[in-house]
């Protein structure tokens, strides 16, 4: 199109009272009318409303407009709305440019004159830019109607069940020998105190038996390539050394295994397991694994084979090798969960120094019917504790470790207090900074625990020590002292206790960063995966077709986790149900005449979207993989790489209109 054929229509939105009182919209419209190539400029109360859009459509038809600028809110809000209007009227959807005069002018400028001047600059920039816009098209591609769920905790299990119920093929990957995650370690859940196993077990069985779910336990995702609708995923299946098809889960192998003193990970090292083991009785699948680091045959090459001898099904196979499996999925749900904060660096709390200092997960096991003590809250010496301290915010709300609130600790701490009182009758002190109980029936649970006689002390514990002020007092012998200020009474407390529970915060699971890098999902400074938008797209990520469920996105309790997992599953199903997706139009383009073949762009592209054409000695873009991030355009020294719709020319003209 020749430049003198460009006809621009400019529309200034009042946005109700959001823009108009601060920005003189009429003056801006008048100003816009005087800009080169502008055929018509109007202002209107709500451009995004149906009549507002009708204006644009009518003007395009009536005046032969071929470029549209709307000055209103942010592109994230309404760019799609106006692009659709352009398309309806018969011009390419990329012949549109938005100027944000609400967030960038009206809302952030005190003076009306300044706000109006800034709005004019932004409109001039949009007009200058839109004259250089090119028509762009996107393509429709078919999607694979299957979903990969990474992580078999409560979030991953729920996402898998919901997606499977919708009739989609689901692959659920769990790196541990059994699904269940952290929740399988709990005995009771707050605030209803219902039994975790009673909720979990049926779900685990459902996952194991679901006709649409293919379960890979003891497996890890090793690579993810491709794009929305067509992700190629490679899975590493670690050797169990047991033939799953033969094993009937009788458990005789575990009874006979002579290596019995391996700290049990599932029991937080509070008890022992054998070298051939199943992490817990209700494990799904109910097939044990042989720990190759401790098995006599595998680790030391010594004669043994006790398990093999007694296995009637002949399921033991010491020659099993790691296996790779390749699958193709349309969408991915990440549910990698969390890891409990390791309190050892907080030396003042004495974890790892004093045996009666426990982490919250250790306490969960201590209290669990399937735990090391069969659910009795006992000290290492076998006695019931008489005095117990629970310390909140260990590792959380602490700029030296994790600045954020881990959200679940207040509630589970109070659950602990209740359980200790109920099971042992011990006196319990809870040391908190603030009690955070925002949830259905949560505050009520707090009140209940208070009424049960738990001492709620508002003060962060300074230290836990075995120094006793009165060491000769036999009553206090062997006890620990918790030192804190009760900030409500301003008394310095030195409280002797038998047992201390550290309510540790939540951190991203180990290896979550690797999963993120593999898929291209970004994390925040703390390592939690970043959602696309906190409010508008809380389970989506910047990678189309990849969704988040549960704690991998941030600390969450079980109700929120399950709700989010259902949400993520709903989004994944909604995306795939149509059968096709549109590719992006704003993607990279590498000018073959300018490319020097240095492959810098190949190295900076995180989406693996750039290939090197050896024959021509130049780089080429895979349009399906490219996300239009612009890294290549920035890195390319000869400006051979550029992003469509963000070309140098377009951006320079935009800047020029503002700066010069």
């Amino acid at each position, binding site marked *: 199109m020749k430049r003198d054929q460009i006809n621009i229509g400019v529309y200034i939105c009042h946005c109700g009272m959001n823009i108009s009182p601060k920005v003189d919209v009429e003056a801006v419209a008048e100003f816009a009318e005087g800009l080169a190539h502008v055929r018509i400029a109007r202002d209107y109360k709500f451009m995004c409303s149906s009549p507002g859009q009708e204006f644009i459509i009518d003007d395009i038809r009536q005046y032969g407009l071929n470029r549209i600028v709307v000055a209103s809110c942010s592109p994230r809000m309404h760019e799609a709305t106006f692009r659709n209007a352009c398309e309806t009227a018969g011009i390419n959807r990329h012949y549109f440019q938005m100027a944000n005069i609400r967030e960038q002018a009206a809302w952030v400028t005190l003076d009306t004159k300044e706000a109006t001047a800034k709005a004019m600059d932004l409109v001039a920039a949009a007009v200058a830019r839109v004259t250089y816009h090119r028509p762009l098209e996107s393509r429709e591609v078919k999607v694979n109607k299957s979903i990969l769920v990474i992580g078999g905790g409560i979030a991953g299990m729920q996402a898998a069940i919901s997606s499977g119920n919708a009739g989609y093929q689901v692959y659920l990957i769990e790196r541990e020998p059994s699904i269940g995650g952290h929740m399988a370690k709990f005995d009771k859940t707050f605030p209803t105190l219902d039994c975790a196993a009673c909720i979990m077990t049926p779900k685990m069985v459902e996952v194991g038996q679901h006709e649409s779910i293919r379960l890979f336990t003891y497996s890890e995702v090793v690579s993810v390539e491709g794009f929305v609708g067509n992700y190629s995923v490679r899975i590493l299946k670690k050797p169990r050394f047991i033939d799953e098809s033969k094993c009937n889960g009788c458990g005789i192998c575990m009874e006979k295994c002579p290596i019995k003193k391996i700290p049990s990970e599932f029991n937080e090292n509070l008890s022992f397991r054998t070298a051939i083991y199943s992490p817990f009785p209700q494990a799904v699948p109910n097939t044990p694994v042989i720990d190759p680091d401790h098995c006599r045959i595998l680790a030391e090459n010594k004669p043994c084979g006790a398990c093999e001898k007694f296995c009637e099904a002949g399921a033991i196979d010491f020659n099993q090798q790691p296996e790779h499996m390749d699958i193709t999925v349309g969408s991915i749900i990440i549910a990698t969960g969390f890891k409990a904060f390791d309190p050892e660096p907080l030396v*003042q709390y004495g974890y790892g120094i004093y045996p009666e200092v426990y982490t919250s997960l250790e306490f969960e096991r201590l209290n669990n019917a399937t735990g090391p003590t069969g659910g009795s809250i006992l000290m290492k010496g076998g006695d019931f504790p008489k005095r117990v301290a629970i310390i909140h*915010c260990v590792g959380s*709300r*602490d*700029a*030296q470790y994790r600045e954020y609130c881990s959200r679940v600790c207040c509630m589970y701490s109070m659950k602990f207090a209740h359980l200790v009182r109920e099971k042992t009758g011990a006196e319990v002190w809870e040391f908190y*900074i603030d009690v955070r109980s925002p949830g259905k029936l949560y505050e009520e649970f707090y009140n209940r625990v208070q009424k049960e006689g738990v001492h709620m002390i*508002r*003060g*962060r*514990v*300074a*230290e836990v020590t075995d120094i006793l002020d009165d060491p000769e007092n036999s009553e206090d012998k062997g006890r620990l002292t918790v*030192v*804190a*200020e*009760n*900030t409500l009474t*301003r008394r*310095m*407390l030195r409280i002797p206790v038998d047992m201390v529970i550290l309510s540790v915060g939540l951190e991203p699971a180990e290896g979550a960063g690797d999963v993120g890098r593999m898929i291209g999902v970004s994390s925040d400074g703390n390592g939690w995966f970043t959602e696309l938008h906190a409010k508008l797209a809380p389970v989506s990520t910047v990678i189309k077709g990849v969704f988040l469920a549960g704690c991998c996105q941030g600390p969450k309790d079980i109700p929120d986790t399950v709700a989010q997992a259902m949400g993520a599953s709903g989004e994944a199903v909604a995306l795939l149900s149509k059968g096709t997706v549109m590719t992006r139009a704003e993607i990279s383009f590498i000018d073959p005449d300018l490319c020097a073949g240095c492959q810098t762009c190949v190295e900076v592209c995180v989406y693996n979207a750039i290939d090197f054409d050896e024959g021509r000695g130049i780089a080429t873009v895979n349009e399906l993989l490219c996300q239009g991030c612009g890294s290549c355009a920035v890195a390319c020294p000869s400006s051979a790489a550029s992003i469509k719709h963000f070309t140098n020319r377009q951006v320079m003209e935009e800047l020029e209109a503002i700066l010069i």
Partner: protein
Amino acid sequence: MDDRRLQLKFYETHDGKDVLKCIQCGTCSGSCPLSDKMDYAPRELFALIRDGEMEAVLRSNTQWYCVSCYQCMVRCPQEIPVTDLMYILKQMAIEQGISPKTAKMPDLYMTFYREVLKKGRLTEAMLMIRYGMKHPTDTLSNAFLAVKLLKRRRLEIIPQSIKEPKRISYLKSADSERTETK
């Protein structure tokens, strides 16, 4: 006393504004070896500063009871340099000519300060004698100890000093130049 001006002055000092980060958790008070002797716990002091109660803050004995053990500082979950802020409060109190209720520590520090200003070095015995003249009861209780120390050749009666104390007369000008607490 102009509480508002003093509050702003405190905020303008290096790290002064850090008290705004305080979440009143009490870790500092709990960690302090002498907080039960203080008029206000360090945590309360920060709340008072934020409320603009600067006179109450500067008249309190809290900062004078600080032993500079830095335990609060390494434990503070908000990374507030509590001990450093105590120094600022002590200096501000001196600038304002405020004598806290328990004035022994300022006296001791002042005696120390004057001695170093004059001689460039400190002689513990001289410190004890000069301070003792103001607070005879403390001296009496220490007299028995002094005899023990003397027996073990551990009391130095001849004052220590740098070679030519006149050389460091600029310390006095640094002292008089005191304008703003840094």
